[in-house]
């Protein structure tokens, strides 16, 4: 019994009628199709978020210019654009693509089962997510305009009409965010339950690929942190619509309470999206180095440690909100502490690379650039985590550049790394390497040209969330203006390079060369299924005999050793 692979008749394979278009693409309960739905929705939202970035960067660099494709940017429109850009990129791009799309696609395939444990819940989760997208987009067009109080929704900007609250827009915004949370709570419960309960026979805790661990830990972080914000969102809806005063200090409420409710979720959220990206990078680096992952268990324990620590740092977002200075001390210490586990993961990846036979293809380039760019994001975070330095740098472009150096590697580089790596498995075709590399270098160079200058601007005192610097002569100095314009031109360059990706993606999807089962000679289970895997993934579900990173094992002909190969 110990040696026989477990055989199950495929419950879907026979007697199943050919599904129609709706059933196959829109109403499917197949985890791979739901992953694709999340991914394409996320990519569409990324285009919207990118377009918003283009409009307000044009306004910053060339105040009062007629932005091509948008027109003049009015002051309130500027606020709406930056609010929507932030919210979309985090809640409707990073979350659906990194957690939902990769989680849905990878978890069943990498742990060797035929679907998520609750396929219908999975479908419902995407539909609620889609509803949240619709509500968000609807909020752009209602009377009073979209919400303009920044994605953090601080009161009183989000609750008081006299501070420019868009009555309907703000409510729809909060509803959209709340629906999105409900969708990801469902998804998260599905992910965690699947990964805990449905592993292939023989797959023990330490045989689970690290990316699955990270997605699971991220889902747990999300579930454990989002509750207070859900309660806060309800309180905020009541403040906006029923005349309560939870966050109104004139009537017995407390606006700082909202900041705590928000950031108690908001900071773990950074790690919710970071961990899956780190996991993707870890997989790619190991496969492309042809080496066993350095210190698998240490990475795993570090992930748990990061998860717990991420709950203890949230008030570093509030250092200038007038919080208790003693608490600021504590939160400074915990914030600086959390750089240790993250730095450790980076060192582990470098140690994995050391002495490996490295293949520098497109996914690997993205993975390596993740380490380089995230390093800058992490190091500048040390400045901001120290409450003393933060008081000067808070709300400047330094902060903005810092979190773009963390979120860009997470949401954009991590996604491109994952998509280029798993594209053969997702669609059964190979992507074009040359176009991939052109896209990579164009994006990565332009990205650094946008945000390195913004560090300089921030350190020079340029504040965020200012519509037009003409009112502030000291910020309108030509040398600062030129830096701003350079950053905006770099953004245009970066956005235009995405056309290369879109072309490569669409072209490879239909015309790319057919992908073999295992183009990267990888060990993990998803590469033992067909490309793309059919409904049910395998005719016979695999059995696991070893850990996921047995590369270049001495005494074997091949330099890889798939998890399901007995000998």
């Amino acid at each position, binding site marked *: 019994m110990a040696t026989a692979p477990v055989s199950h008749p495929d419950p879907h394979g026979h007697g199943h009628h050919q599904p129609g278009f709706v059933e196959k693409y829109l109403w499917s309960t197949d985890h791979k199709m739901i992953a694709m739905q999340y991914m394409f929705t996320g990519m569409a939202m990324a285009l919207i978020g990118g377009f918003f970035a283009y409009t307000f960067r044009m306004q910053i660099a060339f105040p009062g210019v007629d932005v091509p494709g948008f027109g003049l940017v009015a002051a309130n429109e500027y606020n709406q654009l930056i609010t929507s850009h932030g919210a979309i990129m985090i809640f409707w791009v990073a979350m659906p693509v990194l957690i939902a799309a990769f989680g849905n696609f990878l978890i069943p395939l990498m742990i060797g089962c035929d679907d998520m444990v609750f396929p219908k819940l999975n479908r419902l989760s995407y539909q609620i997510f889609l509803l949240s997208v619709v509500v968000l987009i609807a909020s752009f067009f209602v009377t009073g305009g979209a919400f303009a109080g920044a994605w953090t929704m601080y009161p009183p900007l989000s609750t008081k009409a006299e501070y420019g609250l868009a009555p309907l827009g703000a409510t729809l915004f909060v509803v959209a965010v709340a629906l999105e949370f409900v969708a990801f709570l469902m998804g998260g419960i599905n992910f965690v339950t699947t990964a805990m*309960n449905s592993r292939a026979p023989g797959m023990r805790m330490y045989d689970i690929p690290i990316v699955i661990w990270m997605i699971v830990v991220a889902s747990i972080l999300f579930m454990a942190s989002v509750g207070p914000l859900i309660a806060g969102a309800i309180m905020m809806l009541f403040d906006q619509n029923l005349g309560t005063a939870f966050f109104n200090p004139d009537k017995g409420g407390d606006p700082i309470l909202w900041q705590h409710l928000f950031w108690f979720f908001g900071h773990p959220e950074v790690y919710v999206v970071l961990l899956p990206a780190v996991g993707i990078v870890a997989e790619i680096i190991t496969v492309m180095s042809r080496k066993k992952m350095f210190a698998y268990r240490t990475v795993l324990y570090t992930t748990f440690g990061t998860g717990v620590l991420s709950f203890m740092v949230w008030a570093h977002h509030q250092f200038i909100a007038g919080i208790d200075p003693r608490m600021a001390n504590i939160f400074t210490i915990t914030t600086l502490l959390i750089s240790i586990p993250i730095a450790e993961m980076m060192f582990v990846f470098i140690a994995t690379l050391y002495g490996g036979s490295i293949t520098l293809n497109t996914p690997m380039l993205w993975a390596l650039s993740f380490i380089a760019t995230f390093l800058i994001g992490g190091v500048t975070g040390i400045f901001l985590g120290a409450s003393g330095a933060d008081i000067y740098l808070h709300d400047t472009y330094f902060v903005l550049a810092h979190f773009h150096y963390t979120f860009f590697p997470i949401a954009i580089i991590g996604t491109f790394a994952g998509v280029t790596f798993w594209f053969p498995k997702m669609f059964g075709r190979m992507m074009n390497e040359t176009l991939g590399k052109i896209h990579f270098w164009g994006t990565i160079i332009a990205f650094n040209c946008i945000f390195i200058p913004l560090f300089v601007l921030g350190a020079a005192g340029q504040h965020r969330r200012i519509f037009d610097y003409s009112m502030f002569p000291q910020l309108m100095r030509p040398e600062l203006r030129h830096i701003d314009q350079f950053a905006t031109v770099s953004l245009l360059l970066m956005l235009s390079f995405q056309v290369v990706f879109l072309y490569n993606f669409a072209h490879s999807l239909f015309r790319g060369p057919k992908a073999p089962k295992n183009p990267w000679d990888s060990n993990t289970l998803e590469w033992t299924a067909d490309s793309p895997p059919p409904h049910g993934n395998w005719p016979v579900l695999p059995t696991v005999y070893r850990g996921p990173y047995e590369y270049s094992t001495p005494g074997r002909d091949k330099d890889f050793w798939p998890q399901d190969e007995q000998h």
Partner: protein
Amino acid sequence: MSASPIATTRTTAGMPTGRLAVWWVIASEIVIFGGLLGSYIMFRLSHDAFAEHAAHTNTWIGAINTLVLLTSSLFAVLGHKAADAGDGPKAAKFLYLTALGGVIFAGIKFGYEWPHEIALGYTISSNTFWSFYYTAAGIHAAHVVAGVIIMLIIAPRAKRNFDLHRVELIGLYWHFVDVVWIFLFPLLYIAK
């Protein structure tokens, strides 16, 4: 259910998938109520006036509703016992009794307690105590209503001996809703 994937039948974690998932639901609900009640306690401890406002809540109604929920929890767990014994009709009967408890709870709250208080002028926007009172009790009552709806969906199938494990799952959720009320009752009604 032949349509469910093999994944659903696996139990690597030592617990049936459904029960595991309900525990995760409960964990994520704890933080929702935890954030709300934590905020309430912060306000409560720094406002003497909350005690005076709380004096206007009706302890007897709160106590009766506690009794109703505790009793319905008893029915839920008796339903679980019947389901484990494979007695679908009996499990369904207990589910209906549990749902009846939920209906009585919601009926007392929405039919008598709240209209009475609103008539006396204590509305959600009167002051922060009443805001918290209606918000916390309202979110809890929404959970009660949701539970009743789910039970009414599950019970007819359980009666025909289908999906009997669901009787236990909705029971788990129902007990959690009961536990939340066990804490809401002293927080909102007794501490005056």
